[in-house]
């Protein structure tokens, strides 16, 4: 079947088998391997992407479900070669160890900040409850999200992402 949707601001059109998951289209067909698959059943959140600004587990969604919709992956956070404030704060806070959960953490946090620019610690923890990290113990991650909010990092909406951000694939 023909699938048309937008990834990181770029319109995409490709043929997919209707049983294909969103994460497989992103990683395999579009080469956007920043999105990770951990558990494959919606427990770990490593595969989190935004669909119309809402965070979803891309391992539990068929690709066809995003037809006509806007998808933002971790590759779409940076603009014009500049990291998003959220990414800069993750680095500054040391909120990354092995890095496998990081794309999902960033996208879940991005979704929170788009809706709630100045979240409480409780709101941050609730927004990240669907993302597991086996390394850091979450303290630095929560601190990075708070620092991003303090720096006004919510103002970078996905629609403003630069045009070439979606171009990870060679096809």
């Amino acid at each position: 079947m023909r699938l048309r949707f937008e990834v990181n601001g770029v319109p995409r059109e490709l043929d997919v088998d209707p049983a294909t998951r969103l994460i497989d289209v992103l990683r395999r067909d579009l080469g956007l391997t920043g999105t990770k698959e951990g558990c494959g059943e919606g427990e770990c959140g490593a595969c989190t992407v935004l669909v119309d600004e809402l965070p979803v587990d891309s391992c539990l969604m068929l690709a066809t479900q995003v037809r006509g919709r806007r998808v933002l992956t971790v590759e779409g956070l940076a603009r014009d070669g500049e990291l998003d404030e959220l990414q800069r704060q993750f680095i500054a806070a040391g909120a990354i160890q092995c890095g496998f959960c990081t794309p999902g953490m960033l996208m879940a946090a991005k979704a929170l900040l788009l809706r709630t620019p100045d979240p409480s610690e409780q709101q941050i923890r609730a927004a990240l409850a669907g993302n597991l990290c086996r390394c850091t113990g979450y303290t630095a991650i929560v601190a990075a999200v708070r620092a991003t909010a303090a720096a006004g990092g919510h103002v970078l909406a996905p629609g403003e992402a630069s045009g070439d951000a979606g171009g990870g694939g060679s096809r």
Partner: protein
Amino acid sequence: MSTLIHLAPRDRSELVEALARMTGQSRLLAGGTDLVREMTKNGLRPDLLVDLNDLDELRGVGIKDGVIRIGALTTFARLQEDPVLRRHGRCIADAAASVGSVQIRSAATIGGNVANASPCGDSIPALLALEAKAEIWDAADDTELRPIADVVTGAGRTSLAPGQVIAAFVFPVPDERWLTAFAKVGSRSAVTVARLSAAVAVEMRPDGRSIGEARVALGAVGETAFRDPLVESVLAGGRSDARMGLRFAEACCDAVCRSIPGRYSLGYKCRAAAGLADDVWRGLGFASPAEPAGEG
């Protein structure tokens, strides 16, 4: 290669045509959070997917002619914030807020939750407490209203035949004197599968201190969520004070013990039921027996 056929009807007439093609191996696609996992982890290979996502009439919450209608395709993220439900059916909004993670709630739908008929499906006790009915559409273009207890018939089993789809849930707008609450117990405080859940709806008498009619639904105890008439009879006609809170907790423990005799988890669930009852009691706004300052 998969030979999966994908149909995405855009209105009811296209839906009727698609439903008519369904077999026992066909599946309806709403949010996908249960279905895709079944396909990935358990090798489910449907012959046909009827994708409901282009049917906007199945989405959203509305009030018309004294009836609240919740579209089956409404996500838990929408339900938890819905102003109509926060006012008239809070147990559904609270149950929705307790489902999975933000990611799950952004995709998963109330229709899918009921149709999957998990014993721990959070929306089911809430719908039971509101005496909601499922509005079922079928391949003959007929509409039927079926009580939730007749839809969910066992663990993972429903009375829905191939070609039948839940379009919405409906219940009369409760009188302002009705109070509702939902609570659940799981192995962690967030993103947890219910080990035990309860939804309660009580109609307060005009004095504001005693309970008239009461409905109590328990979930994740046995194969399906159920209303418990014995627990309801304890509440009906009683006061909404801390002493009654204690009796309510005891009645919930008894209900759990009666329901799963001999089950390995019985000891845990009997004790958890008391804590769960206390959470629901507080959720209704009543004085808790766990607080010495209360009336009791």
